[in-house]
Structures are given as C-alpha cells and as structure tokens.
C-alpha cells in the first residue's frame, strides 16, 4: 500500500477555510524556518487512502476476535450516535457548570450505576485507560497510608500471573513490587501470601477471575489477609466481563478498583484507544480522589477524562439494565466454556475446569512434537479471517493461547472458530511446515520484527 506521502502531488489539496476577514498579522519573532512536509492530496485521494487502510485492518466488524483479556465484544452503534450529539461534542471543558448540566449528569449517572455494579462508593472518570486507572488507584492507596503517617508501607504485592501493567503501575506510584508465585491453577497461594505480607505491605493488586480465567475461590480469605496486615486491596477490572452484575468487587473485600469501559462496557478500542479507566473506591478513600479538595492526590489528566467514551458506556449500561448486564456476563462465561469443552481433548487446557469468560490453552506439547508453536497456530487462524487469541500470556503458562470469545458471538461463529482450531491442529500433524509458514492468504506475510527493532525506521523520509 502506498503511504499517504507517496500519494502526494504538489499543488493538490482541499479547500477548507475561507479567506481571513481581518487584517493579516504575522509573527515576526520566532518564525518557523524549516519547511513543513505534509501530504498534498485531494479529498478523493484521502478517502481512498483510508478506505484501503481500513480494508487492511481487522476489527470486531470483520470477524471473531477472541483476544484474551481484551473483551472484544460487539460495539453497539447507538453508542457512537450518542457520543456524536452536538450537545456533547460542542461543550468546552471549562464552560461554567450551569451551562454543562447534561455533561455533569452523564458523569454522575455513570458513577452511580457503576458504583452499584462494582460495590464501590465513589468514582473518578479522569483516568484515560486501564493502566492509567491502576496508577490513579495506587496513588489513592499511597495517599491513604501517607495521611495516616504510615510511611513504612512501601511494597505492593502482585501475583506473577498479573497483567504487565500492574507491576509497571506500582513502580510509577513509587512502590517496590513483590512478585509472588501463583499456584499451579493460577490462583493465589495463601501460604505464600501470608509469608509475603507484613508491616511494609501497602496493598495487593489482583484480578478475579484471574488471568487464566479461573475465579479464585479463596478471594475472601485473600483480601482478609491483606486487610489484617494493614494493606488495601486493589481490583484490576480487566476481567470484570465474567462477573459483571453477578459479583461485586466491593463485596469481595476490594477497596479500590479500575474499570475498562472500552472492554467491559462496549465502547470500542479504536485500534488501541481511546479507552476510559474510571477508578472506584470505598468511602474512606474518597477524599483522595482527583479534584476533591485538600487531601486529593491531584489531577492525573487535564479536564474530566475521556468524557465522550463515558457517554458511550453510559448509553450501553442504560440499554442493558439489570437483566442485560447479567445476561452479558452469563453468556460470556457460557461461550467460553462451550469453546473450552469442544477444544479440550484436542488442545491441552492449562486448567481443564469450569472457566469464567476466558481460558488458556498450552501448545507446549505441539511445540515439542511438531515444532508448531502458539505463534504458529495464531498465525494459521489469520487464514480463517479470525483474530488470534492473546499469545504467550499469562507468563505462568508455556506456549499459552488465551481465548476470550465474549458474549456477542453467535453459536455459528463459535462453531466456525472450533472448526478452525481443530483443522489447524490436524494440519500441524500432517503438514507442520504449512502451519509454521502461515498466514498464506493475507496481503502481508510474516514480518521481520527483529530487523524492525535492530534498525528502527520510525518515520517516512522525504
């Protein structure tokens, strides 16, 4: 595909602005000297360029997207309609409150509903994404200990099955990370946890269901151990889609949570963002939230967060309501177990028991016997028009493929997915080279990532 710059023809362009209706003023001082190279393209060329790029971009609208931990559910179009209302898009963030009552009501209503869903008391919408929420939530924990003068609490406990953002966020919040090994089933080892806590424990970061898709049955005991040691419990909401409306993190002993509105609450991922990562907390932490007053941790972003994303999430929650929320998580879990059941026996399940919204398979045996890796199976799925599962995560499972079908896939799609997985497994035995060299039908074949990193070419050179 041509780059936009390669479509550029000197003299081409679009007519956008009228002539200036006041005397021209040019800044004398500090003028830009270097030329500004931007494409010179007609509107037709721009339209065709991006249509071409869109065709080479696999979205949820293109086919199954069982990308574990990412909750690639269908993104309802009414969300987009709501977020495009001029009554939202044309509102300046620094307008006086009495002229932005609708926006404030959106935030307030979303807060109320999400607090009810999560069992929290207050929520901030400033964080722009999940990791941003983790950072914000950890700062609440830090502020809590700081204001009590409890400055020896310097450590955050993170299981080795956690998302990479957890330890990275803990470091940004100034904490030392204590990685604890998980049990074979990915759940927290209570003995290991008891040995890890102490007077230096600031808190624990946990996602439940965990990253192998299992609900940790000992959750009440886990959060109690942390509380008894004087620490707080942080809930990573990445996997809430399994239990939304059925289990509230607040009832499991969590004090702070973040949600991923772009996962669980159906606002689209936009090819990597924007998301929204609101942080909820129990009442005893509310004074530390951004924009609250003297004890606040301060702001983590300009203005009020990714507001239009919150509009989409609110729209979704209003539409689903109590019953719909329940059905969403029930069917997310059903679809995952249906897939798991149909694939187990052929693929090795890391943990072959009832899973929540996702499950993890291990390709270790295939790797050993046929030299076909998790990566190879993932690439082979591309030839079926299916987005592969998350690869090589969680780290505690070798050759992992993490599958999260979501509740919005039809049975026909799930059966198609099963058929593809089974065919690939068969082919890996009869013609492993075919799988190792997949994909075969995509426009672009396997890319040389090593060369890209060794000799970084990060921009077009004119």
């Amino acid at each position, binding site marked *: 595909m041509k780059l936009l710059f390669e479509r550029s023809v000197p003299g081409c362009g679009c007519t*956008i602005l009228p002539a200036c209706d006041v005397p021209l003023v040019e800044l004398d001082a500090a003028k830009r000297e270097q030329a500004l190279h931007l494409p010179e393209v007609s509107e037709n060329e721009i339209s065709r360029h991006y249509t071409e790029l869109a065709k080479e971009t696999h979205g949820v609208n293109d086919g199954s997207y069982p990308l574990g931990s990412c909750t690639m559910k269908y993104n309802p179009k009414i969300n987009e309609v709501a977020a495009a209302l001029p009554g939202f898009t044309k509102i300046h*963030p620094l307008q006086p409150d009495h002229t932005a009552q609708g926006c404030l009501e959106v935030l307030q209503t979303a807060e109320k509903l999400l607090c009810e869903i999560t069992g929290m008391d207050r929520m901030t919408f400033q964080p722009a994404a999940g990791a941003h929420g983790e950072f914000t939530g950890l700062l609440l924990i830090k502020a809590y200990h700081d204001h009590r003068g409890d400055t020896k609490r310097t450590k955050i406990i993170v299981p080795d099955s956690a998302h990479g953002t957890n330890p990275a966020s803990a470091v940004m919040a100034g904490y030392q990370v204590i990685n604890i090994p998980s049990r074979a089933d990915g759940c927290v080892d209570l003995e290991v946890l008891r040995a890890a806590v102490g007077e230096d424990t600031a808190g624990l970061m946990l996602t439940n269901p965990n990253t192998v898709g299992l609900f940790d049955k000992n959750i009440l005991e886990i959060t109690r151990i942390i509380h008894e040691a004087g620490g707080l419990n942080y809930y990573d909401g990445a996997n809430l889609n399994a239990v939304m409306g059925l289990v509230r993190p607040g009832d499991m002993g969590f004090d702070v949570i973040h949600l991923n509105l772009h996962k669980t609450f159906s606002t689209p991922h936009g090819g990597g963002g924007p998301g929204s990562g609101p942080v909820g907390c129990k009442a005893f932490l509310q004074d530390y939230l951004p924009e609250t007053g003297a004890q606040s941790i301060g702001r983590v*972003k300009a203005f009020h967060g990714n507001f239009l994303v919150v509009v989409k999430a609110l729209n979704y929650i209003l539409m689903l*309501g109590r019953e719909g929320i329940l059905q969403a998580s029930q069917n997310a879990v059903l679809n995952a177990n249906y897939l798991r059941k149909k694939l187990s026996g052929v693929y090795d399940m890391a943990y072959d028991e009832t899973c929540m919204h996702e499950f993890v398979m291990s390709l270790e045996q295939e790797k050993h016997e046929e030299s076909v890796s998790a990566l190879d199976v993932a690439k082979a799925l591309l030839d079926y028009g299916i987005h592969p599962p998350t690869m090589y995560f969680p780290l505690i499972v070798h050759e992992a493929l993490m599958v999260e079908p979501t509740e919005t896939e039809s049975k026909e799609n799930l059966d198609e997915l099963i058929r593809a997985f089974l065919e690939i497994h068969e082919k890996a035995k009869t013609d492993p080279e075919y799988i190792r060299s997949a994909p075969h039908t995509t426009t672009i074949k396997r890319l040389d990532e090593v060369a890209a990193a060794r000799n970084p070419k990060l921009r077009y050179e004119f």
Partner: protein
Amino acid sequence: MGNFISTTEQQQKEMLQEAGYDSFDALFAGVPEGVYQKDGVNIPEGLSELETERRMEVLAGKNQIFPHIFRGAGAYNHYIPAIVRTVVAKEDFLTAYTPYQAEISQGNLQAIFEFQTMICELTGMDVANASVYDGATAAAESIFMCRERKRMKALVSATTPPQVLETMQTYCYGRGAELCVVPEKDGVTDLEALASMLDEGVACMYLQQPNFYGILEDAKRIGELVHEKGAKFVMGGNPIAMAVIRTPGECGADVAVGEGQPLGMPLGFGGPYLGFMAATKDMMRKLPGRIVGETVDSEGQRGFVLTLQAREQHIRREKASSNICSNQALCALTASVYLAAMGAKGVQEAAMQCTSKAHYLQKELEQAGFHLVYDKPFFHEFVTDTPVDAELLMKQLEQHGYLGGLVLSGGRILWCTTEMNTKQEMDELVRLGKEAANR
C-alpha cells in the same frame, strides 16, 4: 432491553448442556456464597435503543451550546473537516484492538507510521510515538524520560497551564520525584530565576510554547541555558502554532510533547484528546508507549510492526519505561486525517488566521477598555484586565450565546480566538463588552 447477544435462549440451553452444565448458575458454582448475586445488581431495567437515544438526547439538551466561543486554555474550537469525521467513523478503525497481529493490522499500523511522521514534521524532532492520553500526561511522562542517576530533579515554568502543571505534580508525587516551579515575570519564565535554579541535579526543564497566557517565550534562549547546565530541555506546544513558529527541534528541545486536540478533535467536554511525544534519536529508547516501525515480510514486501517493545510493560513489567498500554490511537488517526486534509498550507493558514484574529480582537478590546496585561508577542490567546466585574461580564455574554474568555485570578481574562471566529462576531463581542462597561 438490549444485550447484543447473538444466541437464542434455546441455543444457550443446548450449549450449556453440551458443555456439561444444567444451568447458568452451575457455571458460577465456584463463586463463594455471600458474594454471588444470583439475580443481579440493583440498577434500573434496560431500555430499548429508541428509549436510550431519547434519554441521551435529553441529557445532551441540558447543555448550553455556545455558537460563539472565545475560550481556549487547553481546549480549542477549530474547524473539523468533513473527511476527518467520516474516516474515523470507519468500523474497522473504530473496533480494532492495538495491532498485535501485524498481518491483519497493516492499515492501522501504517496509519500510526504516517502519524509518527507528521508529528516529527510538526515538531522538528527525529522520532515520535503512537500517542499518549493527552498533552498533560505527555508532559508528565517526559520528566521520567530525562531523569538519570545524579540528575533527578525536574523544573517546570510557572507559565505552564495549570492543568498540565498539576498533572506533572501528581506523577511526581507517585515516584517521589522533586518538581520545582520556575517563577514567572511579566507573563514569561523568569530567566534569572531559571539560571539560579539550574544546578547539577536538574534532569530537565519543561516549557510550554505558547505559554498559558498565549505568549511566545524565548524558547531558544531557555534551551541554551538548560543545555549549558547539562540538563534536558522539554518543550510542550500547540500543534497548530508549530506550523508557523520555531519548532521544538529548532529551539534545541530534547523532547517535544503537546496536546493534539486542535487537530480535528471536538471540544467534547475535555476528551478524548491526544497526547503526542517526540524526541531526538538519542532519546528514542526512552519514549513511553507504542512505536511503529517499518520492516519487510517474508516475501520482501514493505510492512509495519510494533517495535522497540523492550521498553514496554508487557515485556519489562516493573522495569518498563511507563505503564501505558491503551493510548489514543483513534485520536492519532483523527490528527493524521486532519493534517492531510488541511495540508501544510492549510494548517499554516489556520495558524495565521488564529493569530490575526487574536490581534484584531485584542486591539478592539483595548479600545473598549480591556487593557492588554502583558505587552509580549502572542499566538492566539492573550490576557486583558477588565473595566467591569469579569464574572458579571461572562454572565451577560452567555445570554447572547458568547462563551467569553477564561477568568483568571485578579479579575483578568484569558481570551482566545481561532479561525472559527468571524470579524462580525468579534465586533459583536466587543460591543457587548462596551455595553457592559457602560452599564
């Protein structure tokens, strides 16, 4: 009530059976009693699509849309070309995830590569990342690119917009980093104070250009001062202004960041916006977030991949340069389409109109008794005092559909114009101002 589920109840029953369960509850048998809410949580019943749309329209209707906006302070009312709105609404771009699977994400990856190129062009820097949350978090992240073993302290000019400064402070609270504010003098960074604060322990100095008051600072001189003491120079900026004023690269910046909202994103009550970050080649591996690089596939065709991932949280965990995972990809795409539609000439025209209109309005306001507070070169914002109570004036403007400037401490007003403001509405604004003054 909608749930967007694609299976029928009958199919669900069959699937439960095939998977070995007799009910939905059986799937959740592992959840301890006491935390399992069999019947769901206490929120209202769901609505149909039509009811939901009506409900959202009512909410949107409770806001006042100002047809005439003279307020900026970090969020700017620019024209958004139609092509921008249609391209970013394409479902493939909207619904894709981060392009982990390069073979089926070439469109997304190439779009980011093009964005990185445009940001390099605007900033005059060597490399750019795929975006961060907004200009404020970009500024905050930049500090942690610059800290080294013996240089741990960051400086920031007092002329930085408060929202940006406060975000930097929060990030510094997190890591326990020292952030010192360099005082301002007559609306610009106090160079003498800066010189005295620059010592061997300073990692970097952050300057925003134009600054919070809209004024163009002597950025090049500040960069020289900072470099003389061996510290890094970080410049924040407005991307529209960068098309006409000396770029961060030309001012010697090591890192350039900014708020990309003016490039095609609606005001949207503050977001989603776009943080961009660019750096010199030397600082490339310190950049946080996603970066796309060019490479070839097994058949020798050009292609693009996420690269230099050894910096990132999913590989490095607690040793990562940042925790960022999701960014503002669709906003980066928005900016790219905007820059393509406007072209270099168009962006420069927009910048020039911003400046011309700001100067026209300033002169007219001066005559109406709103005196310029700082006699310094400015881009598209400026500060005046006011002959009437500022809040009262805002109330009166509001009734005529005018969102006046932002009221600052001491009754001063920060005005902003863009290419959207016509001479006619500026004249009307001034008339309303005069009227208020004479009342």
